[in-house]
């Protein structure tokens, strides 16, 4: 009886511990709130906003921000064609999230899988995979972008393909390096000695160690993917209007930085906030899973403790 209740408490304890850790950090809460908000906006926003976002009103060109008399949609000002910056951000949220999630997702999964395989088996498998990674890494991504967007179409899918392929080597090398290191730890040796299959060792023993690193990297990559898409737009080979992503808004707006700062600055802030949030969540996840860290994560701000002296 005692045992049963105690076990019960234990389980709820473990769950609530994460939540406690979550709520213990206001930054994490803010980051998660922002991400959830952005994802909700990405899912529902475009449908709600409809055509209003891309509706040009030349006479509203560069309407200044923080003025309500023109309607709430103009609270962040209007761009060079008089489109409300706020609604453009809403439309951009969907594209940017799609690009970020799909390309980071695909490249991190493919890259780290290959990296674990490469690091675990070593030998010729390792050699071939590393050579391919080297080749992809050496080819300028802009050439790849140009080829794909020249032969195919400048669509979101193709952009995801370009950005995904070019980022695979980063994950591959990271995962490989860590796998090679983890492989030599005793628990892997023990598992091997106990006759566990390669697949089992890779998924049960190595992956759990590699994943946090990859995830930290992936969360940081969210930012760089959004920015890479923006750079392609800046160099003139990105997405096409009326599809907008945040990077395109920054790229388009930067020509007017001196005259209408808000057109480039608000999308820039949104990109920075989103990337920041992704990384903060990644830090939190890392802390939750690493017992050595979570106690510190939970610790109250340091105070002078006279009583212990």
């Amino acid at each position, binding site marked *: 009886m005692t045992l049963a209740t105690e076990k019960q408490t234990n389980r709820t304890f473990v769950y609530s511990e994460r939540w406690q850790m979550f709520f213990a950090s206001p930054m994490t809460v803010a980051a998660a709130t922002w991400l959830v908000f952005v994802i909700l906006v990405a899912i529902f926003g475009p449908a709600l906003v409809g055509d209003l976002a891309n509706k040009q009103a030349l006479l509203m060109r560069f309407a200044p921000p923080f003025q309500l008399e023109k309607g709430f949609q103009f609270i962040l000002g209007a761009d060079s064609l008089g489109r409300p910056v706020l609604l453009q951000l809403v439309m951009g949220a969907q594209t940017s999230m799609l690009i970020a999630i799909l390309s980071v997702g695909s490249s991190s999964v493919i890259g780290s899988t290959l990296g674990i395989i490469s690091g675990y088996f070593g030998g010729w498998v390792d050699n071939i995979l590393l050579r391919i990674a080297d080749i992809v890494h*050496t080819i300028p991504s802009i050439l790849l972008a140009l080829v794909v967007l020249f032969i195919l179409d400048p669509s979101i899918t193709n952009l995801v393909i370009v950005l995904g392929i070019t980022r695979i080597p980063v994950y591959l090398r990271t995962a490989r390096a860590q796998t090679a290191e983890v492989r030599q730890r005793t628990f892997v040796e023990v598992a091997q000695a106990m006759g566990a299959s390669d697949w089992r060792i890779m998924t049960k023993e190595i992956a759990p160690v590699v994943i946090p690193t990859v995830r930290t990297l992936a969360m940081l990559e969210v930012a760089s993917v959004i920015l890479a898409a923006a750079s392609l737009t800046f160099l003139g080979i990105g997405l096409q209007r009326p599809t907008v992503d945040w990077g395109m808004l920054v790229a388009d707006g930067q020509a007017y930085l001196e005259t209408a700062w808000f057109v480039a600055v608000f999308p820039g802030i949104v990109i920075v906030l989103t990337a920041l949030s992704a990384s903060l969540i990644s830090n939190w996840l*890392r802390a939750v899973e690493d017992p050595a860290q979570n106690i510190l994560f939970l610790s109250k701000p340091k105070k002078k403790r006279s009583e212990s002296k």
Partner: protein
Amino acid sequence: MVTFLRGRLLSGAVTLIGVVVMVFFLARLTGSPIDLFFPEGGTEAQIRAFEQAYGLDQPLYKQFLIFLGNAAQGDFGDSIWQQRPAMEAALSEMPMTLALAGIAMVVSVVTAVILGSIAAAYRFRRPDRIITILSLIAGSVPVFWFAIVSILIFAIQLQWLPTSGSYSWKSWILPVATISLSPIGVLTQVVRGAMIDVLTSGYVRNARARGFGSLRLIFRHSLRNAALPIIAVAGDIAASKLNGAVIVSVVFAFPGIGRLIVGAIMARDFPVLQASIVLVGLAIITLNLLIDIIYMIVDPRVRLS
């Protein structure tokens, strides 16, 4: 060591050939320089003359074989747009690229190691939070945006630094800052993570129990261990800077092979593109070799396996 080097050289050669093959065919998928060359439409005779001059009248596989044959003898052909051998064009940009990438990497690694170590030492406390937020922001600022804003502020408003060009040491400041910004952000996070891992490890705790001071703990018992993931990520970033840094080149009009490559892609100047890629490939392969050697020096487990 000899076997190691031989293996490396072999795999480097394989990579290089792979890259050249890929680039050769990828580039030709983007159309022909003829479309660009005659601004307002040329006659058949003109186009044929042009094709002949650059060997574009041959079937693709023949073009490739000719290219391979010549390249093996060190002849990468003449640039279509620039009136000089393609390799000369590529070589002339390389020193600046190496210098810029090198300086930027030193700046980023040093900054990141300092900031990341402080953050790890004060993990989850205020200095850590501040450094983490700042480094994440640094990694999230669009590069071209930062470049333009920094020109507006430092060159045009304050007139402390030149807007562009590469004439004095002052003109290096903004490009280096722009290139280093995002690596600093990423690397600081990596350093922080690696340092936390090491600082919470058994051997550092043991060393502490032996009564060693904190400087010794950090510099002898932690840094070298933490260096491994840092070197891996820094190496990848450095490699991307070798053929990247395009935007910095474009905005600051700073010389560099990245800009040459983009220009060659846009102008379909295949010989220059191929020669540049070979150089960049060589640089990246050398870089990877260096990283492997550093790895071997730092980590005995790699050395002995």
